[in-house]
């Protein structure tokens, strides 16, 4: 999903308004962004990465005070984001710049035609045909407006499109089946894919209809139909908070993202699990051959997913270890040509993880990025990339991306480990439904209310549930600002038990009814004996409920799926505790979504 923005003002702060606007559209996703400013020349700035990357690029640049500009933010799901593919696009003589959201269905035909006419394309996007079409019309002597109309007439598909011309202070825009809204302000006029892009400047808007064109100038906005006849428009006042729309009715992005997990997990699995053959297929890793040990490098939540991934591989007889990326270099971990080094990073830009991957690569290891962002730095620099397909995550605390990392790493472990995957396929296919069941039936809110005033929170688990215990504690820390620690259940008695009091609830992850569950129950009893309240996250297979003060129930599932399912309960507990404490859940203090410094 992409977003576009345009601004016509008095020329003082055009670039800032555009950048603010793009930030307001970030919820629509971002992996590259760009702006074009028009005056005597046409200045185009575009960068892969977040809007902030574009911002830093602009800081050093010589930005003229153009009175009009357009901008674009892009989230690729297919095809790489690159400087070349980022919008705005221009014609060969740099006379017009175009941003576009949508899909041009007949672009190949137009592209062939233009190529035959001698036009050189610099990107792989469908959008680039538009500036070239406009350029041709300008060559034929048409004025900018007519040239724009002629180009738009030629394209089929869905579009919200905006163009600026060199030496002109007008934005031309058109819409067909893609959102486009115009903002009427006191100090200028705006256009955008969605209201959040300019809501801080004006709440008066005009919604453009399909097939309509708009000419936006400092003096006003003129909307016309396909034939060029002026259309009467009504200016509406936005009464709702547009940010709420982005949250689809939820109070926080984090809550929305927790509830999106069944959908994002389905996306992650689509086309990758073959039940008929009982195998897992990761097409993008077709040429991955693992000969030797596997090392994972990651930070924060991704590190917990990496721990989980290494446990899965070890169980399949493959030597695997997870390392904190920031420690990887200083620990001088032996790595060589027979190693596969897997970087797990949501953004694909995490500086520590990138550094570790580069070191491994320099030492001759094969590298693999497991990431959410198509063609991110990690994906481009590594030999292989596996996408977790979770969709954009806005909340700083990772939730749905952790679940998708777990599932993607399970698939990876099966592909590397080989053997019969029938049981795993069945387990994975059931995960979205089991997560949905937890979301439907969770009593996490009640448990959170009970323990909102606790001194600290401890989380224990074994084997696959050990990384979940660590992740549960990290979520709690991040968004509640309260002390929380996760431990391997067996480690309690070697020290942490001294911290346990009646004011420190212990969350115990106990799924299944095997030896692992029984041992964790033993640890639960140790805690009970010290008077701490115990919250069992359990599928009811074992008798842990007899020893627990509260139960967060999860449906029965395979051991591999259980870790993903149980984690959802801990996400909800952290969310509700933070909510009751009135914390800034989506943007916790001192934290950023993607940490691009070491």
């Amino acid at each position, binding site marked *: 999903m992409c977003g576009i923005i345009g601004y016509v003002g008095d020329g003082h702060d055009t670039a800032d308004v555009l950048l603010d606007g793009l930030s307001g559209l970030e919820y629509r996703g971002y992996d590259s962004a760009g702006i074009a400013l028009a005056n005597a020349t046409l200045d185009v700035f575009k960068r892969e990465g977040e809007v902030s990357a574009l911002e830093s690029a602009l800081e050093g640049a010589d930005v003229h005070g153009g009175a009009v500009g357009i901008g674009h933010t892009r989230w690729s799901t297919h095809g790489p984001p690159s400087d070349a593919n980022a919008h705005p696009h221009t014609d060969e003589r740099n006379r017009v710049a175009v941003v576009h959201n949508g899909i041009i269905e007949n672009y190949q035909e137009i592209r062939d035609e233009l190529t035959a006419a001698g036009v050189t394309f610099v990107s792989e996007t469908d959008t680039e045909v538009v500036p070239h079409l406009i350029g041709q019309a300008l060559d034929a002597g048409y004025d900018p407006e007519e040239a724009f109309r002629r180009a738009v007439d030629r394209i089929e598909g869905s579009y919200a499109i905006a163009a600026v011309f060199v030496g002109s202070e007008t934005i031309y825009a058109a819409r067909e089946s893609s959102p486009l809204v115009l903002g009427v302000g006191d100090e200028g006029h705006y256009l955008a894919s969605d209201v959040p892009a300019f809501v801080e400047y004006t709440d008066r808007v005009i919604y453009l209809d399909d097939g309509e064109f708009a000419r936006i100038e400092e003096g006003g906005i003129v909307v016309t139909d396909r034939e060029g006849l002026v259309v009467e428009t009504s200016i509406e006042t936005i009464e709702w908070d547009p940010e709420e729309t982005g949250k689809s009715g939820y109070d926080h992005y984090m809550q929305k993202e927790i509830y999106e997990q069944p959908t994002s997990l389905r996306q992650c699995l689509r086309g990758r699990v073959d039940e008929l053959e009982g195998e897992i297929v990761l097409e993008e890793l077709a040429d991955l051959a693992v000969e030797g040990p596997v090392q994972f490098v990651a930070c924060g939540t991704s590190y917990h997913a990496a721990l989980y991934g290494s446990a899965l591989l070890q169980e399949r007889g493959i030597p695997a270890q997870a390392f904190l990326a920031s420690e990887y270099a200083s620990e001088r971990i032996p790595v060589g040509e027979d190693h596969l080094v897997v970087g797990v990073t949501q953004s694909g830009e995490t500086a520590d993880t990138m550094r570790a991957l580069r070191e491994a690569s320099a030492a001759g290891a094969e590298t693999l990025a497991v990431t959410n962002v198509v063609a991110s730095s990690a994906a481009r620099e590594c030999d292989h990339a596996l996408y977790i397909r979770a969709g954009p995550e806005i909340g700083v605390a990772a939730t749905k991306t952790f679940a998708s990392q777990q599932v993607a790493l399970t698939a990876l472990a099966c592909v590397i480990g080989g053997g019969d995957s029938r049981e795993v396929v069945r387990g994975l296919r059931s995960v979205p439904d089991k997560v949905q069941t937890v*979301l439907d039936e969770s009593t996490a809110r009640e448990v959170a209310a009970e323990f909102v005033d606790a001194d600290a929170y401890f989380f224990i688990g074994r084997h696959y549930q050990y990384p979940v215990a660590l992740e549960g504690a990290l979520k709690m820390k991040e968004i509640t600002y309260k002390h929380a620690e996760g431990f391997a259940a067996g480690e309690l008695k070697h020290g942490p038990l001294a911290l346990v009091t009646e004011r420190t609830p212990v969350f115990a992850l106990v799924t299944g009814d095997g030896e692992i569950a029984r041992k964790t129950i033993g640890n639960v009893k140790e805690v009970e004996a010290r008077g701490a309240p115990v919250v069992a996250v359990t599928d009811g297979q074992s008798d842990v409920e007899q020893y627990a003060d509260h139960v967060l129930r999860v449906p029965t599932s395979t051991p591999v799926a259980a870790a993903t399912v149980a984690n959802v309960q801990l996400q909800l507990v952290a969310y509700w505790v933070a909510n009751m404490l009135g914390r800034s859940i989506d943007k916790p203090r001192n934290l950023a979504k993607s940490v691009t410094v070491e």
Partner: protein
Amino acid sequence: MTDISAIVLAAGEGNRLRPLTANRPKPMLPAATTPIIEHVFDELLEAGVTQLTVVVGYGRERVQSHFGPTYRNVPINYVVQEKQLGSGHALLAAEETVSGTCLVVNGDQLVDRRIIADVIETHDAGADATLGLIRQADVSHYGGVILEDGEITEIVENPRDERNYRLNAGVYALEPSAFEAARAVDPDDGERSLVDAIAELIDSEAVVRGVVSEGLWVDATYPWDLLRVADSLFAAGTVPEREVADSAQIHESATLLEPIVIADDAVVGPGAVVGPSACLGENVTVGASAVCEHSVVDADTRIGVNATLVDCVTGRGVRVGAGSIVGGGPGDVHVGDRIHQDEPLGALLADHATDDGGVTYAPGTIVGSDARIHAGSTVRGTIGDDTEVQG
């Protein structure tokens, strides 16, 4: 009207559809394989609606997570009705989000775009409200109106007399005065209904018009009606004769009989026979040699090897064991202390009901959510939620 706002009422559970509504509101029940409300959105957008406000309440996360912030590029504004105190109360919850004329539709009934378009076209500032109506012989389970010269003179819920009623299709164009009327209604048993608000308007001598349209209109009153809903969609061509998602895996030796719809990630094993009139939801698995005919199978359900489902409705995540048989209707269905005779239902299995295999379902059996039936049992009648049946 160039900008048309629609308020979609989707906050109610629909308790006559229990046990299917244990985890989600009625609008999210499957019409073929997509939620009823998604069809409603499609029809609204096709009829020219440009802004959607959805009143959510019971199971609201299901609605919000399914659609997210936009549907087909149209922004969705969610309004929460914390307590479900009737459709009139729901309407008032959304009052802030609209100005001037607005369209109001029920999110839990299938409605044809022609009905919506006719209401939009007929309504003008001369009327306080315009209702979409259809001709249907039996209106006794729905809302009926008496129409005289295009004006509605009376509106009655579940009319019992033999007068010439038109059926209220649940599509309304309303002026702000209708919101006033909704506010003026005396709550009945704590609830304010939208129909009472219309009655209030009629009593106050406001102009309430009706427009009779042709087109599909289907309401699911009871769980087994979901079979009828799917049939209607196939018959009307809303769902194509054969729709198999790209991501579905169909074994080459399986037989698909039309009409049939198979959603994303579904798997049909070797030798299975699916259809005619089968709807397989997302991620459903049909085991080898299983038969699935005239059934609505909701997402994540697994039908075991050699099982037979005829006239069957399942919720999500149901497990039908190997060799189990739902032989088809008609059968008597027991709901509460009422018996619905000869309903065309083989069996209804609610969310996460599980059988261990070799189970025989007598026609009209209802199995509650999370119930478990042990291998080899024969079951009939109504089995409650979380119940375990042995032998």
